[in-house]
C-alpha cells in the first residue's frame, strides 16, 4: 500500500501576549488549515498559548553548520559593539 504522506509543518506558539512566537515542534497535515487544527490539539492542550503559526518545513531556509564560522565568528571579533568595551570613570553616573 502506498501511503499518502502529508507535508511537514513547523509549529510556533506565542505563550502569552507580549512574547514572541517560539518554535515548539513539527507535525504532518494536508494543508495549512489542518495544520493549525492539529497544532492546537497537539501543542496547546493546557493553555500553552494564545496564538499559533504554522509554516511548511520545506519553506524554511536554515544556515548550514558548515558555514558556522563565516556566519557567526565575525561578530565575536567586534568587541567595540559591546557597551563593556568602553571605559567610563566611576564618578560618572547613570551611564
Amino acid at each position, binding site marked *: *500500500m502506498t*501511503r*499518502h*504522506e*502529508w*507535508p*511537514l509543518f*513547523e509549529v510556533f506558539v506565542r505563550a502569552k501576549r507580549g512574547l514572541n512566537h*517560539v*518554535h515548539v*515542534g*513539527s*507535525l*504532518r497535515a*494536508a*494543508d*495549512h488549515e*489542518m495544520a493549525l487544527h492539529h497544532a492546537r*490539539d*497537539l501543542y496547546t*492542550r*493546557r493553555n500553552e498559548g494564545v496564538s499559533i503559526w504554522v509554516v*511548511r*518545513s*520545506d519553506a*524554511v*531556509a*536554515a*544556515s*548550514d*553548520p*558548515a558555514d558556522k564560522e563565516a556566519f557567526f565568528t565575525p561578530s565575536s571579533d567586534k568587541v567595540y559593539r559591546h557597551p563593556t568595551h568602553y571605559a567610563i570613570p566611576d564618578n560618572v553616573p547613570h551611564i
Partner: protein
Amino acid sequence: MTSFDSAAARSDAGAARIDSAGAGLDAGVARFDEAIARDQRIEPADDMPEGYRRTMVRQIAQHAHSEIIGMQPEGEWITRAPTLRRKAILLAKVQDEAGHGLYLYSAAETLGADRGDLTRRLIEGRQKYSSIFNYPTRSFADVGVIGWLVDGAAICNQVPLCRSSYGPYARAMIRICKEESFHQRQGYELLMTMMRGTPAQREMVQDSVDRWWWPSLMMFGPPDADSPNTAQSMAWKIKRHTNDELRQRFVDMTVPQAEALGVTLPDPGLRWNAERGHHDFGQPDWDELRRVISGDGPMNAQRLRRRREADEDGAWVREAAAAHAAASSPAVSSTGVSSPAASSAASILEGER
C-alpha cells in the same frame, strides 16, 4: 531557541554526505565530541556519528511507538468508566499519550527519519515498543495501577531524558514529563477512592497491583550486566543512569506510596536495607521479559493488529484530505518530504532488522 529543527535536518542530509566523502568529517567528529564533553546539546543540523544518529532514531521511534500502543490498554476502559468524571480524565489521558507519540515522531523526523516509514516498521514488527503494553487490562483498577506504577516507572525513566544530549528529544521529554505527572496522580487518586470503597473494590486493587508490579520493574530493561549498549549510551549522554539504578529509585519511591494506599507489593524479598539506604527487592522473571519483547506476550498480536487496522481504516481519510488540499490549493499539495531527507531516512534505518 535554535534553528528550525526539521528543516535544518533536511539541509543537513546533503551536508552529511559531503562530510562522509572526506573533507569535513574529522572536524565534525571533533565538534561533536567537544559538545558532548561540555554537556552541550546536539542539534539536528550538527555533525554526529552515524551510530549516534541511528541509535537516537531507534530510541525515539521505540519511545513514540510505546506511547501510541500505550493508548490501547487504557483506551479499552473509556466506554466502561464508572463516572463521567473518570471518563473525561481517561479520555484526556489517552489523548495525551497520542500527543506524546506525536511529539516524539516530530523529534525523530529532525534526524531525517520519516514518520510514515516508522509507523510501517512498527506495524510490520520491525521496531519494538515497551513490553509493558503487552499485558491485558482486566479491571478498572488497572487504569489506576497503570497511572500509579506504569506511569510512575515511566517518569523515573523519563526525567533524566530531559537532559538527553539530543536537543529535540530532550525538549520533547520536558513537555512529556509535565503531562506524566497528571497521569500518575489521577491513577493514585483513583486507587485511593477504590481503597475507601467495598472489600471487593479493595481486592480488585490488590489483584491489579499483583499483576502489574513485576512487569513495571521490567520496564527499566534487563539488569546492567545484560545491557551491553548501556556504556555507549551513557558515553553519548543519551542515557544518564543505568537500568538497575533507575529500578532501585522506582522501588524506593513506590514502597511508601504502597503503604499509604494500603496495598501489598507482591515481593516477599522486599525490605528496607539500612546499610545500603535502599530497599532490597527480588528480581523479575527475565525470561518472561525476553518472551514478551520477542513478541510472545499475552497481548502482542492484538496490539499490533489493532494498530494496523487503525492505519488501514484511516488511509482513505489521509488520501481524501490530501486530495482536498491539492484541489483547493495546488501550491501546498506536495505529498512527500524532500528527497534528500527520504533517502537519508532509508540509509539510517537500513541497519535495523
